């Protein structure tokens, strides 16, 4: 088994044949750690996330996730592969016509209905929701009736429903107030601690979150890795763009 959860080798991506969103990006995301990917807007963070999920394919280069090259997979292999990943979307992306509990049951029913009975599925979904901090009294509400923080919790419970090996967070704190931001950060750390051996990848432009929760931090610029390492690497760096990013990020406080 390779050391890296995700191994990205010299990938490029262009949508129109001219502008490269990702431009020779190489990155090894370590297993079992919280990796935070930061960068200014438009540096290719979200596109990189889509490549890891297999929603986009690189124009050139390889993406190897959990030891599998996404290019060589067939339809069934991609489905099986995606069950090993969990994603918390920016706005949780809950299905708005079904209840909270049904939202979490949904992926389990889709992939485990032949092996688990309905009781077991409901029991697992209830446990996942409780672990994410949702109380039982909210289970039969529709997502539209929940607050922003509660939606995130349900989104996380759904992402964790199939016990994924990699959990990806797409801008988890964008648009949230400072208290909620802290709550989500704590939730990410707590979830990571609970799911032993799992790898967490957080894509954000929130510098505070990056330094608070990130064990391995990657900064992107112009579709490439500008700097990677732990907090100290960043504070010691003399790259002007990194210094500017740190300056701007911490000035807000």
């Amino acid at each position, binding site marked *: 088994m390779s050391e890296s959860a995700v191994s990205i080798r010299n990938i490029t991506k262009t949508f129109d044949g001219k502008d490269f969103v990702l431009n020779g990006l190489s990155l090894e995301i370590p297993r079992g750690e919280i990796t935070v990917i930061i960068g200014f807007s438009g540096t290719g963070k979200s596109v990189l996330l889509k490549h890891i999920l297999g*929603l986009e394919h690189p124009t050139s280069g390889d993406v190897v996730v959990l030891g599998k090259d996404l290019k060589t997979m067939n339809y069934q292999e991609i489905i099986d*592969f995606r069950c090993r*990943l969990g*994603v918390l979307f920016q706005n949780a992306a809950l299905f*708005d016509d079904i209840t909270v509990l049904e939202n979490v049951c949904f992926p389990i029913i*889709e*992939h485990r209905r032949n092996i688990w009975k309905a009781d077991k599925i409901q029991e697992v979904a209830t446990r996942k929701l409780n672990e994410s901090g949702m109380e039982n009294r909210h289970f039969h509400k529709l997502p539209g009736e929940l607050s922003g923080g509660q939606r995130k919790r349900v989104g996380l419970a759904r992402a964790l429903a199939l016990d994924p090996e990699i959990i990806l967070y797409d801008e988890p704190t964008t648009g949230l107030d400072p208290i909620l931001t802290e709550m989500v950060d704590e939730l990410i750390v707590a979830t990571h601690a609970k799911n032993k051996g799992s790898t967490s990848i957080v894509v954000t432009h929130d510098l505070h979150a990056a330094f608070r929760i990130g064990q391995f931090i990657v900064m992107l610029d112009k579709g490439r890795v500008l700097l990677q390492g732990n907090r100290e690497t960043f504070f010691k760096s003399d790259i002007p763009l990194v210094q500017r990013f740190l300056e701007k990020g911490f000035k807000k406080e």
Partner: protein
Amino acid sequence: MIKGWLSIREKVNASIDDAFARVGHFVANFFVEAGRVVLFFLDAGKLIFARPYRIEEILKHIEFIGNGSILIIMLTGAFTGMALSYQIYLGFHLVNATNLVGPTVALGISRELGPVLTGLIVSARAGGAMAARLGTMRVSEQIDALDVMGIDPIQYLVSPRLVGALVSMPLLCGVFDFTAMTGAYILCVKLLGLDEAIFWDKIQGWLHPRDIYEGLIKSGIFGLIFGSVCTHRGFNTTGGAKGVGEATNSGVVNSMVLIIVVNFFATNVIRFYYHMIGIR
């Protein structure tokens, strides 16, 4: 003077070129888009037969498209039947041929107005809802969420809607035919005083079951048309609430235009087929 004339000529030439370019662009775009919709339709059609079968979803959409449209179809059917029969009555009254009102209305409704109006009404109601729903799911990342859960969004969202439209439309067309004929009967026999026996007898003599099948088959085709166009538009929505509005608008408008155009060709193909097998 000559210089001025030349510059006018250049401008005229440029605007003619521009007009040709625009027409060319429009035609090219039309075929590209039509090709995309057809590929999308084939993709979704193939996935109807892939496991896991989405029976529950299919039933849900038959209920939404079919059951949800019955009232509006009955209402429009009855009034269409009454208005059409009244106009035909007025025309035939002039040549003393009111005994032919019944069968003329019956043929017109079962072959043309039934399927076309059902197609237009249901594409506005259910097609619009499909495009808006899928568009909202796209912009709120719910479709991406399905994808990353290892669930094929086309199989889960699009295929059941296509089956729903295909199954519901002939049923609704039947309802339309029935209520339109009831409306025509009430108007002609009860209000205008036509002889009831002649009204029904002539219909029975002239209207063949294949005329009704023709309408039902066409309505099924229209179901597939608005189903594929509207789901394609919704599924490929970009750009927030504005995008959802545009997808819904263009989905419904394109479906309606396509239904009317395809109806003409479908009528001709069916007529040609009847001609080939030696029926009137």
